[in-house]
């Protein structure tokens, strides 16, 4: 086997990988990005539930014990399949103590300290503020319901170009219209312009020593239809390795590397957070919605518009209050989940038989147009722990694409359960007021809890006992290996985490550049921020 070499090897092409790829390539380093998923762009993003279309090619669903994870599996990572809600984390988050009884985040990081990095990412994507004219029926209904209960509601900052958006609600399958500001429209094309190389369907398995302080990254190439099949393997040596495979995939790579690299920090594969996430589903009483909220569509309906939209657009932030105790703080955001993923776990209120399947569940589906989903982001206790890694990748793959069984175990603590219960109760209070709707949380009995925002499984911190990375994102005890994805975020954020993951990655870059220079890479920091393009970057012709 021929071993290739590069200056900087990046594992994963989501926010953590793409931001690093751009800055290091623009600074003059030779950058190679290995991405386990395929390279898709606008023309590949299907409006189709057929297995093998873009939503199964680009998505990863890994069932664990007590927690299931959804994540990206393509060039651009989570940014291709995310809903592009991009709020900053509230200030109190950075002072969280969580389960360790003292501040979890590094002393160097606060909301104020992170704001300049938030600004940079917001400029690049860009993040835009919506006005009420941009808000979809489902978002408007949630806003009106909050208002009816005496609560505020905010249009959420987003990475969506409203002029190109068709409100098709297919953003989980990638945006066909390039309205969603994925990394295929900014950091990645800019990194390519500066010579970065991106290799799709390259799944990294482990890292070993290559001598002279360099690392060797071992990968398998995967079949482009059946991801269970390895079509080859290879090795690349690098002076710097940046692990950004996502919070569900970074720990198995590092755990598998322990045999050759030596002991990993205790916090690798521990302190996983599901961002405290929870979903509630409401069925709206259309007549009451018209009467109570005074809403009416041009077609005469009050609502019946669940299918229409662009993911989450309105959130209630009344419980993001620094004065409230930890675990009592949460946000409530309207959301859309397509049928399939979004219907299986929905429960029937007051069911006389099974609540999540059967006759009564089928009746609930008939009212799908009047559904409203509310996404809760609470403060969990970082209680997730990864077991032994699977032989390859981050799961035992069951299906050709998307579905796998992973080693994560998540047993919610009383704090987490209380936070979920409080948030559930608040949604119920708001939406059931005066008979507006009936509400039930999704069941946790089928695939455990679930998160679309896995975090913290290899986190930054000041305390070596409870953090795997120092505040420069360097893996403790393994100089030259950095982690810049969602696994580095130390705690649940109570809001959508993409902008925070990206801001932390931007913040980590100067330190990574300095480390690269120390290791003999001719690279500088300070390239201008990338300019967004209008067409998602496609895989270069072979």
């Amino acid at each position, binding site marked *: 086997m021929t071993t290739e070499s590069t200056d900087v090897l990046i594992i994963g092409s989501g926010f953590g990988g793409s931001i690093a790829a751009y800055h290091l390539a623009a600074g003059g380093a030779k950058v190679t990005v290995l991405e386990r998923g395929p390279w898709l762009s606008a023309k590949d993003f299907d*409006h*189709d*539930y*057929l*297995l*093998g279309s873009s939503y199964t090619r680009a998505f990863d669903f890994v069932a664990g014990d007590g927690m299931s994870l959804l994540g990206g599996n393509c060039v651009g990572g989570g940014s291709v399949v995310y809903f592009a809600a991009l*709020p*900053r984390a*509230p200030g109190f988050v950075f002072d969280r103590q969580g389960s360790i009884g003292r501040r979890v985040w590094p002393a160097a990081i606060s909301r104020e300290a992170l704001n300049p990095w938030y600004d940079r990412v917001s400029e690049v994507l860009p*993040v835009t503020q919506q006005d*009420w*004219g941009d808000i979809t*029926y489902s*978002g408007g209904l949630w806003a*009106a319901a*909050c*208002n009816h209960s005496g609560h*505020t*509601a*905010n*249009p959420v*900052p987003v990475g969506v170009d409203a002029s190109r958006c*068709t*409100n098709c609600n297919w953003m989980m399958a990638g945006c*066909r219209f390039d309205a969603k500001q994925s990394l295929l429209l900014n950091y990645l094309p800019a990194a390519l312009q500066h010579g970065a190389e991106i290799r799709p369907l390259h799944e990294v398995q482990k890292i070993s020593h290559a001598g002279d302080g360099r690392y060797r990254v071992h990968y398998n190439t995967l079949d482009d239809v*059946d991801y*269970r*099949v390895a079509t080859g393997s290879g090795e690349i040596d690098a002076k710097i390795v940046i692990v950004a495979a996502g919070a569900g995939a970074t720990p198995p790579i590092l755990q598998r590397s322990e045999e050759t690299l030596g002991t990993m920090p205790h916090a690798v594969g521990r302190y996983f957070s599901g961002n405290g996430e929870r979903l509630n589903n409401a069925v709206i009483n259309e007549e009451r919605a018209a009467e109570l909220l005074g*809403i009416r569509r*041009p*077609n005469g309906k009050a609502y019946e518009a669940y*299918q*229409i*939209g662009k993911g989450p657009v*309105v959130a209630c*932030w009344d419980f*993001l209050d*620094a004065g409230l105790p930890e675990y009592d703080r949460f946000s409530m955001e309207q959301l859309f989940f397509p*049928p*399939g993923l979004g*219907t*299986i776990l929905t429960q029937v209120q007051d069911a006389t038989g*099974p609540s999540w*399947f*059967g*006759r009564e*569940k*089928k009746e609930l*589906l008939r009212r*799908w147009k009047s559904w409203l989903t509310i996404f809760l982001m609470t403060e969990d206790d970082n209680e997730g722990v990864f077991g032994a890694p*699977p*032989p390859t990748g981050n799961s*035992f*793959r*069951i*299906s*050709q694409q998307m*579905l796998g*069984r992973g080693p994560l175990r998540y047993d919610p603590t009383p704090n987490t359960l209380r936070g979920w219960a409080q948030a559930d109760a608040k949604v119920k209070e708001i939406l059931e007021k005066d008979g507006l709707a009936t509400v039930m949380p999704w069941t946790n009995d*089928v695939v455990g809890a679930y998160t679309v925002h896995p975090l913290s499984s290899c986190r930054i911190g000041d305390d070596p006992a409870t953090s795997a990375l120092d505040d420069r994102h360097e893996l403790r005890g393994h100089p030259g290996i950095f982690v810049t994805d969602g696994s580095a975020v130390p705690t649940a954020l109570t809001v959508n985490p993409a902008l925070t993951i990206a801001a932390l990655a931007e913040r980590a870059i100067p330190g990574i550049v300095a480390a690269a220079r120390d290791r003999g890479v001719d690279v500088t920091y300070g390239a201008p921020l990338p300019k967004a393009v209008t067409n998602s970057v496609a895989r270069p012709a072979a």
Partner: protein
Amino acid sequence: MEMPALGGRCDNRYVEISADSLGDVLEVRVDATPIFSDESQKMTLEAFADTIVPGVKRFPDDRAIAGVVDDPGAVAAGALDLLVDPATGVAAGLAPLSDMLNAHAGAYAERTGLTLEDDVPAFVALPYEHRAELISELTAPGNPERDGWIVLVMFSNMAYDIVPHRPTEDVLAEGVPSLLTLGYAKPDSDGLWRFPDFGYNRELAKRHPNTTESGSPE
């Protein structure tokens, strides 16, 4: 009782996936044997899918379908076609799961005092409410076999909700139940969805007073 292998055909390549935590559930094998050794196995899985999303009987003496509703359900939407689709990766586990389900149904009948007709598989012979109760038991947290049953539940659900073994445009054009029952809108002529009428276009709540200049919480 040991859980069977769940697996499917992967061209002519051999794939093996196994995990201690799952027993042998996820071992995937490629072989040339038929998925079902007899029709009763298929009938049993139809009865399982019909318990998840019930449908109307396809013909008067349709035993697999319990017939507790009067419109098509998961079986009519193609649950069995989906389960044997190589993309799902579960085909090789279907026959053993079917046999296990009938064994469980027999034991269930014995402990609940039910007398089952013996001209059909035991699970098929169970009345609908008892089929549902048994599936609730098999999928309950803590059941050591639940991984296999949950996968069957998920695909049975998906067969009805999104018919993922067929192109969605065809499903909607042909009037296959499920997505249409949900009230799912049809796409434009190019197969893509666009909703130019998408919002109320007016302020419907006050923003949080501590919203920052960037539009985020403070």
